[in-house]
């Protein structure tokens, strides 16, 4: 056992010491998760409204109503609001003229007359829903203004009219617009945090990719001539194979654990049950390590092995739903995706993260991953043992 641990330890040490790994293994995945989450994450669907004409009570009143409806409101100049609309960085723009603001502040030249603002909708698909929220907010402001005007016209002092309206609004709940996308796909991603989906996808992509490209160290070990020296020591070929396999597993687990911990701390990613997520990760790491053993055993050129590792790692990740969520795949591709271990791990993470799934819910995925791990480990061990003999 000491020899197995020593072998695994030296593999891990060499992996961590390789400076070229620092960026691609530890920095790049987190950068991608940040980028993907910012662009396409669940939070990226936040309703955004930009208002030109800050400082007026009309603008503040509309802002209060919109924020109450979870809309992100910003103030900017008219030109900036137009730019944001054209670039798609805001959904709806409101342009409040000085005349409209003054009229609103004065209570209207004719009491109760509705305030008029210019509203421009962006071209993105979600803008229509935000537009509806803006309409509701403006109507709500107008109604309140009309109510206040009616009360003061009836002879109630302004202060008492305000108090009466405030008391009434506390007794009655104002209508609230909640935009719900009822499509199957939208429901599937319901409840996910902004970075949750990207974190799970990139975790699987990078753990598998790094494992495959890291297979080159197996080839290097043969070229360095250390294999004969190992086997001349009281170390059986079985122990040598086990040590190499454990080393590859440790490398994958370190990277996977780092991404899980890093995304949880930096981006607040919710991994659901930690124990179950780690179990899924461990099985996926075993599959990755075994696949690396296969590549590192059948190939003798480390440059070629690295190329094959990158190619296979990216193709399998894409097919397994680590680039585009498999829920968006056509039916045929969705079926094909189940030839990859990524897909089963993705489904297991989805069950844990989105539906608070328990062990029973992910048993099928765990079973398939375990079967893949056993099959690849057997094949990898056989091929690695042969490759060790080749190096003698």
């Amino acid at each position, binding site marked *: 056992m*000491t*020899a197995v641990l*020593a*072998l695994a*330890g*030296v593999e891990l*040490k*060499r992996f961590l*010491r*390789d400076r070229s790994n620092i960026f691609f293994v530890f920095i790049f995945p987190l950068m991608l998760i940040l980028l993907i989450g910012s662009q396409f994450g669940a939070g990226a669907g936040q309703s955004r409204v930009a208002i030109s004409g800050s400082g007026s009570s009309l603008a503040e009143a509309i802002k209060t109503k919109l924020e109450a409806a979870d809309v992100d409101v910003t103030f900017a100049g008219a030109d900036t609001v137009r730019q944001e609309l054209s670039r798609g960085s805001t959904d709806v723009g409101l342009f409040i003229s000085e005349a409209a603001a003054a009229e609103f502040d004065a209570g209207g030249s004719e009491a109760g007359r509705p305030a008029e603002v210019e509203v421009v909708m962006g071209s993105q698909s979600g803008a229509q829903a935000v537009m509806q929220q803006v309409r509701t907010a403006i109507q709500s402001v107008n109604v309140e203004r009309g109510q206040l005007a009616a009360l003061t016209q009836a002879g109630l002092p302004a202060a008492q009219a305000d108090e009466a309206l405030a008391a009434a609004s506390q007794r009655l709940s104002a209508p609230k617009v909640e935009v719900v996308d009822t499509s199957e796909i939208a429901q599937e991603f319901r409840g996910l945090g902004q970075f949750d989906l990207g974190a799970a996808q990139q975790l699987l992509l990078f753990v598998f990719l790094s494992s495959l490209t890291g297979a080159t160290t197996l080839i290097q070990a043969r070229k*360095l*001539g*250390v294999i*004969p*020296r*190992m*086997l*001349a*020591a*009281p*170390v*059986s*070929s079985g122990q040598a194979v086990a040590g190499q396999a454990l080393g590859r597993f440790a490398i994958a687990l370190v990277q996977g654990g780092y991404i899980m911990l890093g995304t949880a701390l930096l981006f607040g990613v919710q991994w659901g049950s930690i124990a179950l997520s780690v179990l899924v990760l461990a099985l996926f790491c075993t599959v990755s390590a075994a696949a690396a053993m296969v590549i590192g055993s059948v190939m003798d050129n480390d440059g070629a092995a690295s190329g094959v590792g990158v190619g296979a790692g990216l193709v399998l990740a894409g097919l397994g739903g680590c680039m585009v969520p498999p829920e968006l795949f056509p039916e045929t591709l969705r079926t094909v995706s189940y030839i990859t271990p990524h897909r089963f791990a993705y489904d297991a993470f989805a069950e844990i993260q989105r539906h608070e799934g328990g062990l029973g819910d992910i048993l099928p995925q765990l079973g398939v991953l375990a079967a893949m791990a056993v099959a690849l480990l057997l094949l990898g061990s056989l091929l690695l043992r042969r490759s060790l*003999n080749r190096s*003698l």
Partner: protein
Amino acid sequence: MTEVLTVQGLAKRYGDLAAVDGVSFTIAPGETFGLLGPNGAGKTTTISMIAGLIAADAGTVTVAGKGMGPSETAAKRHLGLVPQELAIYPDLTGRENLSFFGRLQGLNGRDLSRRTQEVLELIGLADRAGDLTKNYSGGMKRRLNIGIGLLHRPTLLILDEPTVGVDPQSRNSILEAVEALSSEGMAVLYTTHYMEEAERLCDRIAIIDEGSIQAEGTRDELIKLTGGVDRINLHGSGNSVAAAAALRLVPGVQHVDGDGSALSLTVQDGPSVLAGIVTGAGNAGMSVTSVEITRPDLESVFLHLTGKALRD
């Protein structure tokens, strides 16, 4: 005396090629045994079987009384192997390399730390122990390569051509280290195709060619196989035919061959008869311009036994 290594009838074939064919020898404690032969003679294959790296097709290997084979870990505990090629991790430090291979040998804890430090000092790398070995010079790597083989104080140390590609200074340092180990009682199996190294280090030498041992013994015993005669080559001008005839009559001259301007003589004790030969050639009408005396050495033995030069 109990032999540290006993090799009996070792054989290995690769297809039609008999890489090793019936090799047998023994090594006693404190003895340095040389396997001398050209590249491709079967030295490394023999060593690979002795170290348990590959299985023999026939024959047995016993190390410290224990049978050796690929799965025989008990015998491997007594053996230290220094492969021909450098077998170290370039991205680990010297100390880390020693520590890793020490663990594989079953060392751990304080014993491993102490032994690692001792070996670092022995091979003169204590002050560079924390440097990555990729930054070492070729000689330093060679010394580390040998140090790893010594970590667990093996009963038998196998050195497979340890001086190949080494500068003269490092080479001398390696040879001195081997002499020191032997004097401390370690049995050493040393393979080389450098005759001078075998002559300097080895108590006994086996000459191996085409997979089989051609002869085995001490240096003097092997030289006697050639008949112990010296060879004298004369170069010059004039009547070499007459000179050859005259020289055949000189006492101590056994054989004379001539080809135009050169004569080749086989003689007993060349230095003592040289003056008479040069005089005799001159008297017969040959003006001698150069003389070369070749005394018998392991090269001569190899030539005598196989009909080819050692470095062919």
